């Protein structure tokens, strides 16, 4: 055996990497990602085990329950490739050892993948792309799509290689402090960004009018005087526009009419802009913790929006 050692070439590993993208293809409620995992391992199994019985045993071995975050599964498949390679070369690697590595890694890694990819990177890139897109810029979707996939493909390839090179020693890394730190760092960044997004993108406006004050002369634009200037025709209209705009820039929006209207929203914004948004978000957190379905909350929000609008509150 020792003289003709079977190893997985870079092409084999690329084939596994390519198939591994379809990990969730046959996601099912029974054994979750098992079908996709077996599908991913096929190029390696074909290469490593020339005879039929070994192939069958390997295929069965990789149809066991498996479920983790689809991207951080890459280092797991890298380690598994290393283990299968050792086994094919005669090392005593038990079925239980392979399944143990898979199960042992999938939990802690999913705990890293979810906050890093779903709750930090995607909201961040998504919000960045969406804010460009809402202004009608094609750069929004392109930026999101390209940045996401470059990061993803590179991550999946390099962590798979990392797992393959390190073999089983990576499992020791998992219990070390590095994973915990990445998760914590991602949570900090995630919470910070979410705080920002809540302020910027959750919109609630309370329309009730708190006070209407008649402003003193000079605090508002005297539209009658402007109209008189404009009656001069030609140059007069230009002068009128200039006069109105210069007054507007010094007086601000409240100078547009005699009455200064203060809405409830304006009062709240003076405390902290977006206070109501954070209130709604925290309410959602609480409701979700009470096991209220997100769908029910969303539908409830539309109901509140419609009823609040009818009651002239929103």
């Amino acid at each position: 055996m020792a003289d003709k050692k079977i190893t997985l070439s870079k092409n084999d590993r690329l084939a596994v990497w390519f198939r591994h993208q379809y990990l969730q293809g046959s996601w099912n409620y029974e054994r979750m990602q098992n079908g996709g995992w077996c599908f991913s391992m096929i190029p390696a199994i074909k290469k490593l085990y020339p005879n039929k019985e070994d192939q069958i045993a390997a295929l069965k071995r990789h149809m066991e329950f498996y479920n983790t975050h689809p991207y951080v599964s890459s280092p797991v498949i890298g380690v598994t490739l290393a283990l299968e390679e050792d086994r094919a070369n005669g090392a005593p690697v038990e079925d239980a050892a392979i399944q143990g590595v898979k199960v042992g890694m999938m939990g802690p890694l999913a705990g890293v993948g979810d906050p890093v990819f779903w709750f930090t990177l995607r909201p961040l890139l998504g919000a960045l792309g969406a804010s460009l897109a809402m202004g009608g810029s094609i750069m929004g979707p392109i930026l999101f799509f390209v940045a996401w996939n470059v990061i993803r493909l590179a991550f999946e390839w390099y962590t798979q290689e990392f797992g393959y090179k390190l073999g089983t020693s990576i499992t020791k890394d998992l219990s070390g402090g590095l994973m915990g730190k990445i998760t914590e760092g991602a949570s900090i960044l995630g919470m910070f960004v979410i705080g920002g997004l809540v302020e910027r993108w959750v919109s609630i406006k309370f329309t009730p009018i708190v006070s209407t004050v008649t402003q003193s002369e000079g605090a508002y634009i005297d539209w009658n005087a402007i109209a008189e200037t404009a009656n001069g025709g030609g140059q007069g209209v230009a002068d009128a526009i200039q006069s109105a705009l210069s007054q507007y820039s010094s007086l601000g929006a409240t100078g547009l009419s005699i009455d200064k209207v203060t809405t409830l929203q304006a009062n709240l914004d003076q405390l902290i802009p977006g206070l109501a948004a954070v209130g709604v978000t925290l309410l959602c957190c609480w409701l979700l913790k009470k096991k209220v379905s997100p769908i029910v909350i969303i539908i409830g929000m539309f109901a509140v929006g419609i009823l609040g609008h009818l009651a002239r509150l929103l």
Partner: protein
Amino acid sequence: MSVFTIILIVIVAFLAGMEGVLDQWQFHQPLVACTLIGLVSGHLDAGIILGGTLQMMALGWANVGAAVAPDAALASVASAILMVLALNSGADQSQAITTAIAVAVPLSVAGLFLTMIVRTIAIPIVHIMDGAAARGDFFAIDLWSIIAICLQGIRIAIPAAALCFIPSEAVMGALQMMPAWLSDGMTIGGGMVAAVGYAMVINMMATKEVWPFFALGFCLAAISQLTLIALGVIGISLALIYLGLKEVAKSGAGAAGSGDPLGDILDDYE
């Protein structure tokens, strides 16, 4: 709509459906799916704006473990098609987009049920794959894996194709029947919906330790000169600083006096 446009829309829908489960290329994210449907139907600008708006609502929707989130794939594909139908029948852009946003949420629920059905159908499929594994039949495993992925694609492609055949006059008629209070109210509700996604994210990550960072992000975002990239940079810096200091504090507890050079100097003066 021409046959060619419908074919392209169905292809986009198929990709979105596959991605709804694979979660790799992100064709199911509104930003990508709505833009593509806008592109193939000749309403690129409207598609981009709809995609951006829906993306903001769907930011926190993610499948975690075995739990399945509201389905972004059907929501973005079907609402984009309805928007295109409305635009084709002469509705103005902002009205068409507003309506599309309003229907997106019920559609995401419908999509959720569809994916749950397909994920249940996948159970017998993996049993067939078990049988193939026992025979050492590589081809059958590949084939059934591909079939399973295609089922997820078809999940979105069929409703999309069906929507394409709704006469656009009917969509326009429904639009005109919708009273202003309803559409305005839906828009107001839509402004709040993003909070649900954010709350899902917060519940997943929040600990006593990280809440102050949420507060920091919230207050800093009120400064409108700070772009999202700037906020991201501040966030990364804060995370690095915090983790670094924590490390120092940990090692400082063991070795007396280390980690605080200024404190050491002050101590020496005593």
